[in-house]
């Protein structure tokens, strides 16, 4: 279930529309941004040009106004009454009247100062001053030419002066007087027009070009930001933190400059409007596009999901529902191919299941057969058990009788029997005892096959050591040397291995009977296939030609008279080794030695 949920977010259905959405959005916004930037650039440069033009126009208006004022002053200075007063000091009243014509034209105050010898005169009438004095050091000099002054501030009002020189009446005479007219600043209609033409919340300021006094023509203002040079636009932040664009233009014929600025935001407003106008359709196109892709991808992923679900159903071993996709495109082909494949998988599975059922039936039959055989085998085994139990009890009893009563005859009727009778009865007894031995050995052999194996770690060295010590103790007259390699261990059934070792060591003991010095060895060595155990003696040995007969039951290579035995011991050993998954073989030399080698599979594994 978790994988299904994961798959939802990594599914094509979501990934494809998301991709398209991102793509359209990024393309749209990039285009809108680029358009905005280029329009903004155009607006900015256009605005700059407009600002410059308007600034120049404004400067012209101010220059003309200043020139007009100067011309007015000059005309009054040329008035004959003025000339006369300047030259002679006569008719001051006429001069005052002439001056008053100037005062009537909006000037705040008019002053005519004459530097000439003679009696000092001073007439004040209203805002007109007439003054004649010889001049003194420190008094205002006569300017070198007619001029418009810088702006000044007095009592919070901004004003300027025009100064017109008045020459003496003698031709070529030097100017000895100056006519000074002081005016406040007023807004002209031209300025208002320009302000309206520039638009964009435009502000106009006028000031001294060197920057000390600035006014918006109604009151004093701060100086505008300094531009890099005259006529160059400057972009700056105003006190309200708004971006503004401004330009300073010097006013011809005066020490003034005019400053014009307007809001950059207002200038760039069309570009922002354009940005929004472009973004909205972009967003719309993006959403519509993503929706279209979502629908299209749903048309692809839905059938794919059907196929995937059907494949999942097959994967978990179920039957896939048949896909009904009436489409002519690749998905239709996929669905058809899938339907075909699902049908084949179903067929294959059904045939496989049929085969499995058949095999199961066969196996069931085989199992029942095996069970029957196992039951049979158990019965046989039980019978064998009962048989050997009976043998062990019942077959020996008659032998005991034969032996016992033979002995009784020998004891009770000994004198009547004679030597031959003794001999016969002795033979009978020997035969009975031998048969007892045979029965015991046969029972041992059959027990070796019947008993259940219990594998565990067995210390063969300790076992061999104990057996050899027991044998040595049974006949202390013999000179026996035994060498047991220490720590030879194996996994196996301890009782069976005990029987095997007992047989092998007793054989060694028996066949070395005639040696002056008996040597019996037990040990293990490593060969290419695993561990090989061995029992070696320096006894009678055997002829290798008969080596294949060593391990058959009742097979003997020596005469009973020489070495008594039933011929079952080695057969028993072989059966034990075989039951352990091992192998036994022998090497010998008549009169020299015999070596019995055996392996136990636990080491070979």
């Amino acid at each position: 279930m978790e994988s299904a949920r994961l798959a939802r977010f990594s599914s094509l259905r979501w990934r494809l529309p998301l991709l398209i959405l991102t793509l359209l959005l990024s393309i749209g916004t990039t285009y809108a941004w680029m358009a905005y930037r280029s329009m903004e650039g155009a607006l900015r440069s256009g605005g700059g040009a407009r600002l410059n033009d308007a600034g120049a126009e404004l400067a012209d208006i101010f220059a003309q106004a200043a020139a007009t004022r100067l011309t007015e002053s000059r005309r009054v200075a040329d008035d004959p009454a003025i000339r006369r007063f300047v030259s002679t000091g006569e008719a001051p009243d006429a001069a005052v009247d002439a001056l008053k014509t100037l005062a009537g034209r909006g000037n705040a105050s008019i002053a005519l100062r004459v530097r000439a010898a003679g009696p000092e005169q001073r007439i004040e009438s209203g805002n007109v001053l007439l003054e004649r004095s010889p001049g003194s050091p420190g008094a205002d000099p006569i300017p070198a030419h007619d001029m418009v002054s810088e702006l000044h501030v007095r009592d919070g009002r901004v004003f300027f002066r025009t100064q017109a020189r008045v020459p003496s009446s003698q031709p070529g005479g030097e100017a000895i007087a100056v006519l000074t007219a002081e005016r406040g600043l007023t807004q002209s209609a031209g300025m208002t027009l320009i302000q309206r033409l520039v638009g964009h919340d435009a502000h106009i300021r006028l000031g001294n070009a060197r920057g000390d006094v600035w006014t918006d023509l109604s009151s004093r203002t701060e100086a505008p930001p300094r531009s890099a040079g005259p006529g160059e636009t400057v972009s700056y932040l105003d006190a309200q933190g708004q971006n503004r664009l401004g330009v300073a233009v010097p006013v011809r014929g005066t020490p003034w400059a005019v400053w014009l600025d307007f809001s950059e935001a207002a200038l760039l407003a069309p570009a922002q409007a354009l940005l929004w106008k472009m973004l909205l359709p972009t967003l719309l196109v993006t959403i519509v596009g993503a929706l279209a892709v979502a629908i299209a991808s749903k048309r692809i992923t839905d059938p794919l999901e059907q196929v995937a679900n059907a494949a999942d159903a097959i994967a978990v071993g179920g039957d896939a529902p048949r896909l009904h996709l009436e489409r002519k495109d690749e998905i239709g082909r996929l669905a058809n191919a899938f339907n075909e494949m699902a049908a084949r998988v179903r067929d294959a599975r059904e045939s496989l299941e049929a085969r499995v059922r058949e095999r199961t039936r066969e196996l069931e039959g085989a199992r029942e057969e095996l069970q029957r055989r196992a039951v049979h085998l158990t019965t046989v085994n039980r019978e064998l058990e009962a048989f050997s139990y009976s043998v062990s009890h019942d077959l020996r009893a008659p032998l005991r009788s034969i032996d016992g009563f033979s002995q009784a005859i020998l004891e009770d009727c000994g004198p009547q029997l004679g030597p031959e009778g003794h001999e016969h009865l002795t033979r009978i007894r020997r035969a009975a005892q031998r048969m007892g031995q045979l029965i015991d050995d046969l029972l041992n052999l059959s027990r070796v096959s019947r008993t259940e194996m219990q594998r565990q770690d067995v210390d063969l060295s300790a076992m061999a050591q104990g057996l050899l010590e027991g044998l040595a103790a049974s006949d202390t007259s013999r000179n026996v040397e035994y060498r047991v390699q220490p720590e030879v261990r194996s996994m196996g059934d301890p009782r069976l291995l005990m029987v095997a070792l007992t047989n092998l060591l007793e054989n060694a003991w028996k066949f070395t009977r005639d040696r002056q010095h008996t040597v019996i060895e037990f040990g293990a060595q490593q060969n290419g296939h695993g561990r090989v155990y061995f029992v070696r003696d320096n006894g009678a040995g055997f002829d290798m030609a008969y080596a294949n007969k060593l391990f058959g039951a009742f097979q003997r290579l020596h005469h009973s008279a020489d070495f008594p035995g039933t011929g079952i011991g080695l057969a028993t050993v072989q059966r034990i080794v075989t039951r352990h998954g091992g192998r036994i073989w022998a090497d010998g030399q008549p009169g020299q030695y015999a070596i019995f080698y055996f392996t136990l599979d636990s080491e070979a594994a």
Partner: protein
Amino acid sequence: MKSPMIALVEDNADDEALTLRALKKNGIANEIVILRDGAEALRFLMAPENQLPQLVLLDLKLPRKDGLEVLRELRENPRTELLPIVILTSSKEERDLIEGYRLGANSYVRKPVDFNQFSEAVRQLGLYWLVLNERPPIQTS
């Protein structure tokens, strides 16, 4: 006081004769009770009027009730639960050995085929169980 009695549980007449011969040969003159099958042995040994033997020599293969069954019933009875019982039989089948000891046999001796060895075994048994071994005190209940 009478010399202690031996009970021989044995169905085979030959074995009975040979056992008696071996006992006699070894000078064991105790009274001997012969019991020829398991049921007879139990009847005799369980009867309160009968004196308990010093030693029971018990064969395993017996008609009617076999030796191991006899052994079990003797051990279940308070009167005979401590009675010295030696299994004297032909076989040394492992399951007989295990079952015999589990049921509380005091000893397990296999009869050898060789009569001389058999006689020696009987001698040693007599010596051990009648002379050396201290019998458990007779319970009077």
